[in-house]
């Protein structure tokens, strides 16, 4: 098991994000598994991903990566995190691809991919560069190594972001609506890359609105609404024969 999130509770009391809360959500991901998370806007899909990547702290529940506990509900009922040092180490286990890419605009494409392995993981520059160029080649961006993010299309930027995450050699890769900020005609190139990673048995959790993609690429689909998991299971089963009324409703609205 690469990731175990158990009974996650997250509230945004006192903020304007009250609709993005999570109540008693559990998510376990096995090695090589591709899990898609679908659901309406504000249902908590992104919040779940942000909790998994430590960008948000959970109120209660537990997060365990590769058997190492990151956060756990203590006696007082609230979750306690391990030391910053341990969190920094465990961060190496995962990568996150953002909806808005968040590339570093002042770095060239190659440096965007190389900088973190060199700066954070203290790896050899030559070795990292060789790997980064291979990754860019795999993303079909070998010729863009010297370009800057502002010179790229959205689809190209997202592929760089994927390369940047992969350069850290993560065990699991999270995607937060990777195609939502793209022109419809550019989504295909990004989805193709993700599909290829799935073929290579990369462990992935993908928050997406691309239903047919989710159906084709995932081993498991989770439908979240109002911060709770409504239904999860085999993609064919969930899309063609949903058990819950709410799931049916959501998918119907989607296909209209």
């Amino acid at each position, binding site marked *: 098991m690469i990731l175990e999130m158990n009974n996650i509770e997250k509230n945004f009391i006192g903020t304007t994000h009250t609709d993005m809360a999570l109540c008693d959500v559990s998510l376990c991901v096995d090695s090589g598994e591709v899990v898609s998370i679908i659901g309406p806007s504000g249902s908590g899909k992104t919040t779940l991903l942000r909790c998994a990547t430590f960008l948000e702290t959970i109120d209660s529940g537990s997060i365990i990566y590769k058997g190492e506990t990151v956060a756990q509900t203590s006696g007082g009922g609230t979750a306690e995190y391990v030391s910053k040092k341990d969190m*920094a180490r465990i961060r190496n286990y995962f990568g996150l691809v953002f909806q808005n890419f968040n590339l*570093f605009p002042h770095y060239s494409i190659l440096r965007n991919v190389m900088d973190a392995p060199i700066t954070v993981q203290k790896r050899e520059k030559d070795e990292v560069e060789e790997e980064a160029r291979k990754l860019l080649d795999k993303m079909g961006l070998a010729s863009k190594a010297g370009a800057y993010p502002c010179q790229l299309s959205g689809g190209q930027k997202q592929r760089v972001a994927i390369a940047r995450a992969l350069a850290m050699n993560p065990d699991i890769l999270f995607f937060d609506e990777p195609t939502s900020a793209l022109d419809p005609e550019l989504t295909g190139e990004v989805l193709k890359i993700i599909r290829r990673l799935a073929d290579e048995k990369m462990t992935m959790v993908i928050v997406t609105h691309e239903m047919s993609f989710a159906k084709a690429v995932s081993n498991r689909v989770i439908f979240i609404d109002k911060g709770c998991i409504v239904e999860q299971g085999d993609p064919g089963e969930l899309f063609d024969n949903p058990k819950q009324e709410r799931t049916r409703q959501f998918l119907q609205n989607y296909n209209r």
Partner: protein
Amino acid sequence: MSFSTMLSTMGAGMLRTMGIFFLTLIGALPLGMLVMFGRKSKNKVLSSIVKAFISIIRGTPLMLQLLVWYFGPYYLFGLSIKGYRYPAILIGFIVNYACYFAEIYRGGIESMDPGQYEAAEVLGYTRSQTFFRIILPQVIKTILPSVTNEVITLVKDTSLAFTLAYQEVFSLAKQISASETSFTPFVVAGVFYFVMNYVVAFVMEKIEKSMAYYN
């Protein structure tokens, strides 16, 4: 007084003016960063004190501040201020400009996309790596036009050192004009400030262009 004598006398003043200018920049640019960190500190006491201090510095004339820095030690603590004129001038200028720069830095940092911090955090950059490698280079590019404005203002503000009877180019122009009943020193001073600012604008534009490779 011949024109060449006047020029050489005023030339010494020009050097003193440039001295104030460069030393102020060298002191105020980094000090502004510290002031900004204080202003943005999570420690409420510290950030309130710094905020109040910036407010006082920005809310009162630099001319008055120079007088306070120079005469303050004598009136408040009875200390001798012999030989303290030049340090007082530099303290006055550096502190004043650091506060303005701090607010410019703060504006630049607060305009950064939070996604940049999040991307760096997920990739495992430490807080200082994130600041110096990812945020600061982008902030510098964003704030450069505002900094240019301040630097141009500084060139002209150096003339306020005349308040403490420091013989920079403006004081000398006034003195020579009065003693020689001549208008020429004012023209010379005016040309000097203009040319200096022209050079400043030219250099700043070069720096801006060197950062134009991305947006």
